[in-house]
């Protein structure tokens, strides 16, 4: 036997939460809310503001899978990112620096600075790193013709002692900087994928010569345009012909060192270095092509989706509810007007219009919300609520209220709306997913908020970067899971409400 329909909003809420689907839905929603509360603590809003830039993310590997995906790699140990921290930090580069003043016998003194930076690191992974970068910070004096910039060598030492010089460089200043004392210059040497016409581009030739010297290849082959030099593989591979291709190369495990030598021509010359050997796995959710920690974007997606979905659903459903109630209660011309408006709004294709507006204006997420509300002031809820009001209107307590002289507006707000409220809650819960989906669709199309990393936004980027094609599954799976999770949470809640309020569904 079905229990009686609960009295009032509170009772309906409690009853709904007590059903099985209500409990699961509430649990899921609670988890999302907890996330929404904790995320700003874990990753403050500043992090999200920097989402569009590159600086905040440059130490992360590119397109790295989540660390735990190692479990599925058949026992392989996948490389984590190794940070070679600067001298002066714990475990950082070791630094040796001496100065020497040499007289040429004619009263001229030549002042030298000899500087060495060295960092040894173990590499025990079963796969090659994805990238390697060396950052060098040089401080020197270069005033007119009086002194010269220092000479720098970057040397790579391998466990098998087949060491090589990656590059020799002389940091040069642009003419405008020349008369400042002392001058500093920061250079980043992209060891893997060096860019043409930069000092690090020499790495490729140096590697060729190294391969030739170690009889791995011939000079002719090495300088063939087809010959592909992959520094991050060659540097960490066992020295034989198999190293020429990543698929056949074997990782050479052991202790590597990165050494930087500097000869300066003033006593004040100095330098420091930093290096990153990028891994292939990162964090809990991996990274995308812009090195974003996807976990941060993903977690931020929860409050954004939650806020957007609930705010949108709440406002739209409440407005539609009130208009529907007015329509049903007052009847006549008002009813006609509201209902025809609802019919009209229902056939307006909101998504295409939204796409058009987004193309023209790139609205922020708040502006999108406003547009959605503007296109949702009447709609299906108006119709549903109107039909409920038409029923409630005939209930005797409405007649009673009229008999003691209550005005129509008072009856509407005091007696009718409270009766409709529980149904409205069900509708709100069921409308939230629609809003989350809508935002995701827009963002997916690249038309959402240009700044916020919403789930749809992340998905859209993944799609546009061919994540599916290249197998960057983590880039797709997590935002999809987020969207589905939030959707199911609200759908379950809505279903629970429905079950409590709709007697036909409540027979068990």
């Amino acid at each position, binding site marked *: 036997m079905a229990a009686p329909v609960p009295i*009032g909003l509170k009772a309906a809420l409690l009853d709904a939460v007590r059903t099985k689907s209500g409990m699961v839905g509430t649990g899921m929603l609670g988890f999302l809310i907890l996330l929404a509360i904790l995320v700003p603590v874990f990753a403050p809003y500043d992090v999200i503001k920097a989402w569009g830039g590159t600086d905040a993310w440059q130490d992360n590997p590119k397109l790295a899978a989540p660390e735990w995906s190692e479990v599925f790699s058949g026992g392989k140990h996948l490389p984590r990112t190794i940070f070679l921290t600067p001298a002066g930090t714990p475990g950082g580069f070791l630094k040796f620096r001496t100065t020497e003043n040499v007289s040429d016998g004619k009263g001229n003194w030549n002042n030298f600075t000899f500087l060495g930076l060295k960092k040894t690191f173990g590499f025990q992974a079963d796969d090659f790193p994805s990238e390697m970068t060396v950052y060098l910070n040089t401080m020197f004096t270069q005033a007119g013709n009086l002194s010269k910039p220092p000479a720098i060598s970057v040397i790579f030492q391998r466990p098998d002692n087949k060491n090589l010089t990656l590059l020799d460089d002389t940091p040069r200043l642009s003419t405008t900087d020349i008369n400042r004392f002392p001058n500093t210059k920061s250079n980043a040497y992209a060891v893997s994928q060096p860019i043409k016409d930069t000092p690090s581009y020499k790495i490729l030739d140096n590697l060729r010569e190294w391969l030739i010297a170690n009889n791995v290849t011939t000079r002719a082959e090495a300088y063939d345009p087809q010959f592909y030099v992959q520094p991050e593989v060659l540097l960490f591979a066992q020295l034989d012909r198999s190293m020429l291709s990543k698929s056949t190369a074997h990782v050479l495990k052991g202790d590597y060192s990165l050494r930087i030598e500097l000869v300066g021509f003033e006593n004040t010359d100095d330098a420091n270095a930093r290096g990153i050997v990028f891994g292939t796995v990162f964090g809990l959710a991996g990274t995308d092509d812009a090195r974003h920690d996807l976990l941060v974007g993903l977690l931020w997606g929860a409050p954004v989706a939650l806020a957007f979905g609930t705010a949108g659903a709440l406002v739209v459903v409440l407005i539609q509810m009130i208009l529907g109630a007015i329509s049903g209660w007052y009847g006549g011309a008002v009813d006609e007007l509201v209902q025809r408006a609802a019919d009209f709004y229902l056939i307006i294709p909101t998504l295409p219009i939204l796409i058009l507006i987004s193309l023209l204006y790139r609205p922020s997420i708040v502006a999108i919300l406003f547009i959605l509300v503007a296109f949702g002031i009447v709609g299906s809820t108006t119709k549903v609520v109107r039909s409920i009001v038409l029923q409630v209107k005939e209930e*005797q307590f409405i*007649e*009673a209220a009229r008999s003691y002289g*209550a005005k129509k507006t008072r009856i509407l707000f005091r007696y009718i709306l409270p009766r409709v409220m529980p149904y409205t809650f069900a509708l709100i819960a069921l409308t939230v997913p629609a809003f989350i989906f809508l935002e995701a669709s827009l963002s997916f199309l690249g038309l959402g908020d240009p700044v916020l990393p919403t789930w749809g936004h992340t998905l859209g980027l993944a799609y546009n970067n061919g994540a599916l094609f290249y197998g960057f599954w983590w880039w797709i799976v997590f935002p999809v899971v987020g969207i589905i999770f939030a959707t199911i949470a609200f759908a379950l809640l809505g279903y629970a409400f429905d079950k409590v309020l709709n007697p036909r569904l409540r027979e068990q």
Partner: protein
Amino acid sequence: MAVLDIRNLIYWYRTRRGAVHAVDNISFKLEQGETIAVVGESGCGKTSTANAILRLLPKNVERYEGEIWFDGQDIMALGNEDFRKQVRWKGISMVLQGALNALNPTVRAGAQVAEPLIVHYDVDRDEAMEQAIAAMKRVGLPQDIARRYPHELSGGMKQRVVIAMALILKPKVVILDEPTSALDVMTQTNIINLLKEMKAAEGLSYIFITHDLGLASDLADHVAIMYAGEIDEIGPADHVFVHPKHPYTGRLLASVPRLRSEDAPEFIPGAPPDLTRPPPGCRFHLRCPVAFEKCGWVAEEFVDRLRLLQATTQGKEGFPRFSEVEARGTQMVVLRADSDSPETLAASFSEFVKSGRETNPFLKSVRSVDAKTKAVAVTLHEGAPPPLIGEEWRAACWLVQEATAHDTIPA
């Protein structure tokens, strides 16, 4: 001076089947501190009368006319807003039929009692609640009931809440529309006693609507017996209940089962008439056991009755053998026979009318039976609706007029 004087109140509904003559020219007075019981079968227009007094009109009103003098003022002449402000609940309040089941399920009892106060005097919530609790105390409800929801209350408690609600603005007149119908007998008695106490304590005047004659005789000073949208008899309760003038009142009293009596209750044959087409003449004539010539028989009714009689007494000795019967206009019925000549049929029909008029009152309406060339023409007496006759104690029945003239009371 009467606190409420209703004169020629007419209130019809518009329906697809025609106008429902729910209240058809009703007049009565209610004196200060007295109770008038309005009694009648369901569907006779009691609730409609109450709604008409409080101007609780649906959309489908066909006619709404008459005068209602309340406190020296014809409130029918008031505008809707004035009526709402001056009369509703402040002057006349009402316990709606089934009101105990019409409490708002989402509002606590106390708040519901307070609602009329808030609506009419715009008092703040706290004060309204205070007064509501006081009003509830007066009808015998403990304070904690105020915080309960209707579904947590018993029927008797709910009815007390409704009564507290009706009394909270201290009206002069309270209309009670079947206030005890949905309650068990013990609770009924409690509620009736409460109503009596309230009346004595606050000098209230009641219009007590019921179909229960026992309750009416218990509470009422005056009674109005309603039948098919009209008042058939109205007068002091001790007169009307002891020596009913109107045959309908008599039947109604006879239909009440008595605890210490051998007499089985009698039922009134037939069903109340369809109010979209109220019977012409006396509205009770179709069911009246003592109906006669003047009561308003028309050809159609005559034909129906005759056919019914033909079907039940088929082939019996003395029943005229006609094959066709047909109404022609309102006062003429035409009979045809297959075998017998019109003359034979006319003779047998006249004989049948003479012998059957006591058992079948409709036969009394026959004025003449004439044999024509091919058929028999039966002409009926013209009838008319009987007027309400009398001063203090009035009844609408042609017999009453005659009885009053002869100064006897019909059995």
